[in-house]
């Protein structure tokens, strides 16, 4: 009897074990509900950090009783997008509506066939002219498919330390500094003037300047036929030379953006200017802290015109079971009225033309900087030119090739060696 019992135990152990494994394998694909039999349709939406959508999604469910929405929020953009690409590769598991950040958009555009054309499946009255031209261009494929509805943007202005400017004998009121920030040449020239009379650096990091300059170029790392042109595009090398020369003269503080050292740099006043997308105001406020209130200012000028850094899109992957309903939700969320509400919640700057003239936006003031921030960034958003074409791997070249190489120049590598590293690295990614 005891033997029998032991045998049974071993057997059942083995069975439970393999059964458990099988069960674990079988339990994928549980999203999506069933709309065909008239029951509520379950939609899922994936976002990262804060989109300010919680109340809006409640509202949408009230307005559309047959829709149930599940919201998957991820804290950080990096892991979120890694997951996104893994699930795209797996062919299942993605939400019906997914948020995509601008920096990762080029990799998404390279796999455009895995996303629905929103011009086809979306509501007919939602066309590309809802958004600023360059915003909808970014998410439009070469053959004219619209992959994502724009949510927010990050128009660039210049932030600067008034007190450091005054101490170095530069003009310090928002109107007076504009000539310094007219072109990149005037910007670097002012930097030379500044560092001659100050202990602080002119800007935080080479990469922060180079990226802004790079995004203003008509052609970026790739041409429209996806050929890597980093070696033949003289504009890129010219930007590179200007930035590395400036850091050679001591204009860069050599602080990697978003590192702890960079955060401390805001508190201690390690640099005098900062390329400032709308969302950067919040970052500066947090890092510089209340003790530095009144020292930072922002002006509606940016060297070389305007620019954009950041912002996201909502897309509907082809693996969605309810693409039409998903597109409808995405269209509703990115309508000007809703984006204004999200702006009120999180300060994410809306990308829709109608939202840019809304009084809620234009009246928005920022106490820390003492300006009408809404109006200022609306002006800057209008200055952004054509969207530069981004080839596959574009974002990775910027993040893993040019930025580290520019950092190595700050750390003592010669600009020529670092440039060779850039060409090598970019070629490897583009292969």
């Amino acid at each position, binding site marked *: 009897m005891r033997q029998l019992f032991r045998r049974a135990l071993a057997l059942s152990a083995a069975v439970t074990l393999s059964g458990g494994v099988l069960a674990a394998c079988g339990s994928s694909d549980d999203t999506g509900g069933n709309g065909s039999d008239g029951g509520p349709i379950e939609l899922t939406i994936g976002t990262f950090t804060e989109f300010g959508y919680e109340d809006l999604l409640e509202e949408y469910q009230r307005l559309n009783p047959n829709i149930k929405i599940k919201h998957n929020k991820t804290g950080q953009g990096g892991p979120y997008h890694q997951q996104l*690409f893994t699930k795209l590769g797996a062919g299942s598991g993605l939400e019906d509506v997914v948020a995509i950040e601008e920096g990762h958009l080029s990799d998404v555009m390279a*796999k455009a066939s895995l996303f629905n054309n929103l011009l086809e499946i979306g509501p007919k009255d939602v066309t590309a002219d809802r958004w600023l031209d360059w915003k909808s261009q970014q998410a439009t494929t070469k053959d004219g498919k619209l992959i994502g509805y724009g949510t927010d943007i990050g128009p660039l202005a210049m932030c600067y330390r008034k007190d450091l400017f005054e101490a170095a004998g530069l003009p310090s009121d928002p109107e007076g500094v504009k000539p310094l920030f007219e072109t990149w040449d005037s910007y670097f020239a002012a930097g030379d003037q500044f560092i001659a009379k100050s202990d602080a650096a002119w800007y935080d990091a080479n990469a922060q300047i180079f990226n802004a300059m790079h995004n203003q170029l008509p052609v970026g790392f790739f041409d429209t036929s996806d050929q890597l042109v980093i070696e033949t595009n003289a504009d890129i090398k010219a930007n590179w030379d200007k930035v590395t020369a400036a850091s050679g003269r001591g204009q860069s503080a050599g602080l990697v953006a978003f590192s702890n050292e960079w955060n401390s740099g805001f508190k201690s006043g*390690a640099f005098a200017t900062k390329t400032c997308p709308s969302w950067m105001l919040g970052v500066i406020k947090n890092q510089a802290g209340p003790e530095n209130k009144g020292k930072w200012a922002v002006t509606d000028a940016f060297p070389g015109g305007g620019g954009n850094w950041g912002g996201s899109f909502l897309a509907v992957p082809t693996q969605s079971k309810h693409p039409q309903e998903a597109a409808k939700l995405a269209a509703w969320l990115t309508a000007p009225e809703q984006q204004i509400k999200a702006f009120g919640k999180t300060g994410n700057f809306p990308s829709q033309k109608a939202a840019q003239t809304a009084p809620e936006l234009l009246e928005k003031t920022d106490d820390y900087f003492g300006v009408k921030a809404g109006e200022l960034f609306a002006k800057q958003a209008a200055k952004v030119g054509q969207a530069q074409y981004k080839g596959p791997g574009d974002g990775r070249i910027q993040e*893993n090739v040019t930025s*580290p190489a520019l950092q190595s120049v700050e750390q003592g590598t010669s600009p020529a060696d670092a440039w060779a590293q850039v060409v090598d690295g970019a070629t490897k990614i583009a292969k």
Partner: protein
Amino acid sequence: MATDLQESPARAPRRGPGSPARPGMRDKLARWDVKLSPYLYVAPFFIVFGIVGLFPLLYTGYVSLFDWELIEDSPEFIGLDNYVDLMVDEQFWKVLVNTLSIFLLSSIPQIIIAVLIAYLLNTRLRAPTTWRISVLLPYVASLVALGIIFANLFGPQFGLVNSILETFGIDRIDWQADRFSSHVAIAVMVNWRWTGYNALIVLAAMQAIPRDLYEAAVVDGASSLRRFVSITLPLLRPTLIFVVITSTIGGLQIFTEPKLFSEMPGSNNGGATNQYQTVTLYMYQSAFEQQDFGYASAIAWVLFVIIIVIALINFLLTRRLAGTGSGR
């Protein structure tokens, strides 16, 4: 094994010479039971190992023969091209040297300090348990928290370590930019976490050394240093080898520390010129950032082979050292 069991009289009483030859069902079952049970008992481990260990291992080898991108419907078979590329990839050799350098910088001081700490813990102390637990505390703390704190301490401009160096009149060191300094900083992180853990293992071995050996040595007039060198160390050899092997396997796969040490949050670059990128970090970057699964799989296999080779060397070393050590 099974035959032995079958022939033991206690396990198969009915097969005695006098019993009637009735090869019934029960008899057969009993024989199978005896034959198969041992395998059945160990099967769960091997089934689980097969699913989560062996299969991924072999599948990784299979993937490494393809030009396999993350989002790829029909990967192209390219034979050993990934391995050929890897052998001429400068970055791979650079990260391999980084890995070995960090490994040596961490393992050697770690084991020496662990033995010394164990020796101190083995002396008469008040509240010995408190001391023993406190050397284990760094191991209990979260690795991620440690990584973030150490990256802060070693900050080049505002870090605590450099501030302290400056008060002593020593030049500040760019712990991030300089290749060797960054390896030292990462090794300090590894040592901080693992030294106490190894010290406790060594301590356990020390306490197993018979007291009479020391007493005899004292009678012979041996100094405490002599006792440590001639009695403690030789008898610790097998344990030390175990510690060396485990830290080899761990040390060659260092990932979290260099990843968190990076200034660029979330970056897998291991510094501006990959000066502290390790092999596992490079593998991770190839797979999930470059989305080149084939290449990453090739790196995984090469790393696997390297670890096996070094483990084999250690195994041979163990046999030799344990052999000489047993001549007590």
